[in-house]
């Protein structure tokens, strides 16, 4: 599904990705954990095209997407969310998602008909919002949502692009207990149809969702395997699990 081969990136003397290879198979959730500054976000940036890698390649469905720009990768089926929530603040919740739906449904070079009245776009958007649990908030302005709701909205926007693979950068960050339990449930149902690469600090989430787990430290993958294997791995424990709540 998603294949990353020998990805390499440095900022000056600082190497943030050191020969990273990993893959996400169909119906799988591959989690990446690692301490702050390990290079997790930079990795997602490179996969989604926000940053260009120095070396290595990214392939989706066997097709090399390394040379594509951000929007082309999204069109090719790579959806993502941001660690720092990123939505369209002046748009309504529904229009945020409808705008993403529009990218997949016909030309956007239409200049006269009112987009907000296109039932075809709005219906799909509303369904997605209902699915993530924001169905009742669709009329709100995005800027008025709570932090937890914004995270869900961002997920809804990513889903609206009909991705073949989803990259999630710390979706649980800043969520309360009940909110993250709900989000874990949602991601668990999504995983069945949508492979995902999950960067996450929340160990509960990782152990509930991940089929595969890679531990990233200083831009290098120091351990990988099933969550249980990694839990037993002394290198991983030393590097990461030991310091957290594990």
């Amino acid at each position, binding site marked *: 599904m998603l294949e990353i081969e020998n990805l390499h990136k440095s900022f000056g003397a600082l190497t943030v990705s050191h020969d990273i290879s990993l893959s996400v198979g169909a119906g799988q959730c591959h989690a990446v954990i690692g301490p702050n500054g390990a290079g997790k976000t930079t990795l997602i940036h490179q996969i989604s095209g926000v940053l260009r890698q120095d070396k290595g390649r990214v392939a989706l469905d066997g097709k090399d997407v390394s040379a594509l720009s951000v*929007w082309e990768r999204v069109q090719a089926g790579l959806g993502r969310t941001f660690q720092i929530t990123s939505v369209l603040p002046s748009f309504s919740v529904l229009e945020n998602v409808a705008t993403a739906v529009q990218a997949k449904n016909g*030309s956007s070079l239409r200049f006269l008909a009112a987009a*907000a009245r296109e039932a075809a776009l709005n219906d799909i958007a509303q369904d997605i919002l209902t699915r993530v649990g924001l169905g009742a908030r669709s009329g709100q302005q995005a800027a008025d949502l709570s932090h937890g709701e914004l995270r869900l909205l961002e997920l809804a926007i990513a889903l609206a692009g009909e991705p073949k693979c989803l990259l999630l950068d710390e979706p649980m960050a800043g969520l309360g207990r009940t909110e993250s339990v709900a989000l874990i449930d949602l991601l668990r149902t999504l995983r069945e149809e949508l492979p995902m690469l999950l960067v996450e600090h929340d160990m509960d989430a990782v152990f509930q969702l991940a089929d595969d787990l890679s531990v990233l430290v200083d831009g290098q993958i120091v351990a990988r395997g099933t969550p249980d294997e990694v839990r037993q791995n002394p290198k991983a424990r030393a590097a990461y699990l030991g310091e957290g709540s594990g």
Partner: protein
Amino acid sequence: MDRSLVIGALIFACLLAMPVLLPLVGAEYLTGLLIKAMLLAIAAISLDLIIGHGGMVSLGHAAFIGVGAYAAAIGLESGIENILVLLLLTLVVTGGIALITGALALRTTGVYFLMITLAFGQMIYFTLTSLAAYGGDDGLTLWSLATFFGSDIVQNRGGLYFVILAVLFLSWFGVYRISQSRFGRVLRAARDNPQRAEVMGYPIARYQLIAYVIAALIAGISGLLLVQHAEFVSPSIAAWQRSGDLIVAVVLGGLGTRNGALLGAFFIVIVEELLSSVIHEWRLIYGPLLVLLVLYAKGGLNDLLTPAAQKGR
């Protein structure tokens, strides 16, 4: 019903009635002032497409008025009389220049975009001043004007007022429609959060460039109409101060709103006229007035007239 639509309709009804009403009160001389305001409004509305809806603050927009005006004037000087042919000429020249300068300017954002549009604007301005054959700095008086297949309906003594009013109406109606269309939605998304729009799958620079060219085309048309009205053209219409006036009109009126640019342009022209007829040092009052308006009417004149809940955004 949408209140901003009612206000807009009222403004146009007034403008339509003016040529009948003004002579009744012996104030025909105000027609010229209204035309001046309408021409400014056309250009301001076009600028609002890129500033208000697109979030691209251009400080070179008046240059496209200049390009349109000179394209028409040079066409007239070369013997082209038909206004439709001149219109085509204006659109081709303005569109071509906008396409090139826009493609380069859109490699930047924010204050750099402002600087580069200013630079392109100044390049165009100085190019116009160096057109020695067409009057250079001093400008050019036109002895023959465009006709509509021989008819003078598109001249001052014919129905130019209504032609300009019609173009103003189309710009007002069209730009707002565009802003609410699929295209406009992408444009507004790119203004709100460019990275998000890109990660929705949109090549945003293309949409921004199209908006930039559309705005330039409308400004170019206002230049053509300006030539027809003034029967004169000079580089000063393309000066960067003119671009500043357009920004003031758009911001004062209310960015990205249905009537903002229209209200702002009329406000500027009317207040300037009123103040300057009362006192000589009118700019001493005009400046503080702008400051107060910007401070106390954040959403611009549009917000004063339209309660927040019903805003024509």
